[in-house]
């Protein structure tokens, strides 16, 4: 019997996923457990695995389609089996027209302004609308456009050392050729000896090629990028933001770090400024619950716990892993969890739970040397804290003499529908107090 492949639900709050890539094509043989497609969830790319061995058939969606979870996206057939008929699989109204492949492939909306042949070819190759530029009349995408696109070597540039054979490395080293400048023709873009020799033999042609292709790079808006775009637009359009800034003297915080790094209870232990900030912000949020709330319909929901989202930059964008119940955790535990989350974020090892349920966000760009900045609230949260660099500045001491102090600017951005200005001001004052004199937290 035809086995249905459904769009999996990876996270508790996830309702739909975008298909990022079909790893197998209609008609491909698959083994149980083989990844057959990459889809995006809230912020992660996940793989959909074959639930059974057989032949992938009746693929219903193309790259770029957003599919509600649990909807059938394709089938696994055994040899000799046919796809189920429409009647057996009548899909609910929400789903795009299901079942037979031809039905999908003739849907004009799917491939936009393209000739029928080009449309079919794009369907087969899993090329989404908007990826190709048409060269035909009125910008119509033609067969030649699709062929040219498919013929392009699709090279995934991995992070780290260039993939090259030992022979390619030797020839490159002999000719002082930078491997990074070469496109590999081997499996997965691996640089072969011939690639290096061609490069060395035709430096002029290579330069000419570069000049000729001086066209803008077009990156389709998909996956995490698209989700960030949607969330930020929603936030910007719906939340009237108010912004407050305060400078904080980090003298005490710095001393605290130094003392801790030397010895705590006989053990040296380090923590980051972000960990300290996270701890103090969690304390301040409990004192000002509207800062830690969300607007749900006609209600403001004050949350009895702090799940702190902390922004981490990764190659494809920014990801905000969440430290659950920050208010119950000590600074060293926060530090360790932050380190672990950041590391896993950079290695693409986060699981959906790591990103879910944040109640407030701290975005720290201090390490980039940014003095101060504003951020956009991450819905459904009601506020966000933007943290800048620590800079040595002259400030007056009690005798009005200039002294050098480490100063950090923090900016709080809040949703004025939910939070009044005075609350943000009090919250920020508490953050400042906590950092300048952590003792207040035990009073």
């Amino acid at each position: 019997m035809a086995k249905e492949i459904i769009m999996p639900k990876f996270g508790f709050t996830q309702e739909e996923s975008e298909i990022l890539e079909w790893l197998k094509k209609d008609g491909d043989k698959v083994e149980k457990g083989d990844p057959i497609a990459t889809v995006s969830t809230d912020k992660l790319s996940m793989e959909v695995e074959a639930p059974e061995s057989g032949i992938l058939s009746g693929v219903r969606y193309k790259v770029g389609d957003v599919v509600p979870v649990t909807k059938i996206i394709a089938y696994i057939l055994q040899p000799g089996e046919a796809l189920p008929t429409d009647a057996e699989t009548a899909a609910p109204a929400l789903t795009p027209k299901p079942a037979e492949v031809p039905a999908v492939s003739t849907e004009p909306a799917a491939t936009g302004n393209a000739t029928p042949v080009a449309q079919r070819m794009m369907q087969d190759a899993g090329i989404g609308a908007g990826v190709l530029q048409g060269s035909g009349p009125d910008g119509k995408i033609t067969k030649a456009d699709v062929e040219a696109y498919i013929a392009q070597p699709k090279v995934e540039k991995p992070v780290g050392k260039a993939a090259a054979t030992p022979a390619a490395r030797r020839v490159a080293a002999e000719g002082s050729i930078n491997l990074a400048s070469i496109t590999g023709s081997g499996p997965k873009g691996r640089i072969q000896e011939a690639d290096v020799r061609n490069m060395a033999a035709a430096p002029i042609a290579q330069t000419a090629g570069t000049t000729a292709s001086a066209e803008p790079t077009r990156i389709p808006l998909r996956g995490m990028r698209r989700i960030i775009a949607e969330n930020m637009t929603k936030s910007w359009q719906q939340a009237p933001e108010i912004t407050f800034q305060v400078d904080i003297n980090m003298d005490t915080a710095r001393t605290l770090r130094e003392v801790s790094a030397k010895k705590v209870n006989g053990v040296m232990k380090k923590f980051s400024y972000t960990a300290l900030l996270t701890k103090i912000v969690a304390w301040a949020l409990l004192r000002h619950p509207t800062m830690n709330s969300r607007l749900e319909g006609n209600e403001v929901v004050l949350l009895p716990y702090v799940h702190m989202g902390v922004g981490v930059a990764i190659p494809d964008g920014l990801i905000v892993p969440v430290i659950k119940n920050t208010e119950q955790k000590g600074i060293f535990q926060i530090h360790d969890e932050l380190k672990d989350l950041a590391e896993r974020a950079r290695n693409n090892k986060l699981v959906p739970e790591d990103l879910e349920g944040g109640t407030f966000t701290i975005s720290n760009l201090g390490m980039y040397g940014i003095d101060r900045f504003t951020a956009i609230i991450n819905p459904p949260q009601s506020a966000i804290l933007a943290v800048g660099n620590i800079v040595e500045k002259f400030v007056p001491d009690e005798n009005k003499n200039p002294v050098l102090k480490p100063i950090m600017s923090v900016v709080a951005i809040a949703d004025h529908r939910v939070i009044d200005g005075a609350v943000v001001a009090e919250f920020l004052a508490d953050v400042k107090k906590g950092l300048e004199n952590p003792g207040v937290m035990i009073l």
Partner: protein
Amino acid sequence: MRELTYREALYEALDQSMKEDERVFLIGEDIGVYGGAFGVSADLQKKYGRDRVIDSPISEAGIAGACVGSAITGMRPVGEIMFSDFVVLCMEQLVLQAAKIRFMFGGKAKVPMVLRLPGGSGTGAAAQHSGSYENWFVHVPGLKVVMPSTPYDAKGLLLAAIADDNPVMFFENKLLYKTKGPVPEEMYTLPIGKSNVVREGKDVTIVATSVEVIRSLEAADKLAEEGIEAEVIDPRTLNPLDMEPITKSIIKTGKALVVHEAAKTGGFGGEVVARIIESEAFAYLDAPVRRLAGLDMPIPYNRNLEYHAAPQVENIVEETRKLVQGVY
């Protein structure tokens, strides 16, 4: 030159060395009256008598022990284990005694013995009579391991093994006994520890042993029709292993495939690949070095399954083609 079969070439080597050197004697199961399970010793008992062609009891440990002991006292024994699989029963004699004695006695004693070991699958003899265990002995310092693929190599290497003062494990292949090739009539030896380039080519290097040499040559002919020129190298002796022609070839071709019948995991191919990676040929590799070997399973009795358990010509063709086309 006249042609002999692999079996006849081995017979001739035994016959000539027995005629020339009366220290040479044969011992094994059913090698005398019956002439050997594969007919290698044929009528030698009639020619040389029951003292020099000894039908042993069914005790492989006894055969190996008699070889080690008589070799130490100055004889030149050539033992036969009817199916090389049963060499497992000789392990103590070979690994702890034969391989170590010269070393432990500071060179005052030597063990000039040869153990002939017919091996390999493809005869429908199932799991206990089809094994390829040569690499077990490659791992034992003090033993030489020889594995000829042609009648010419079989005669020259067997004569060299008998003349050698060290214990030599001589792996024959049951499917090769009937293959024919030119063999000189006179006594000649081939050096132990010299690899042989059996076919020249510029696109890819195939290193193969025993019956897989023959299959690789057939595969190379097929590949040549597609314009792929494979160089085929037969190490002939697995230990000591002569890497020079192999590295030289890879420096030319940039691609290498190692083929043997024994199971892949822990097999001789791993050693060859490791030595390639360690050598100067590393910097000339333009693709991963691939191994094509027997499946990691006992040899099945079912003839179809047995066929697929060892690399066949079509497997070598396909794997080589992929390697050359840049699939790997």
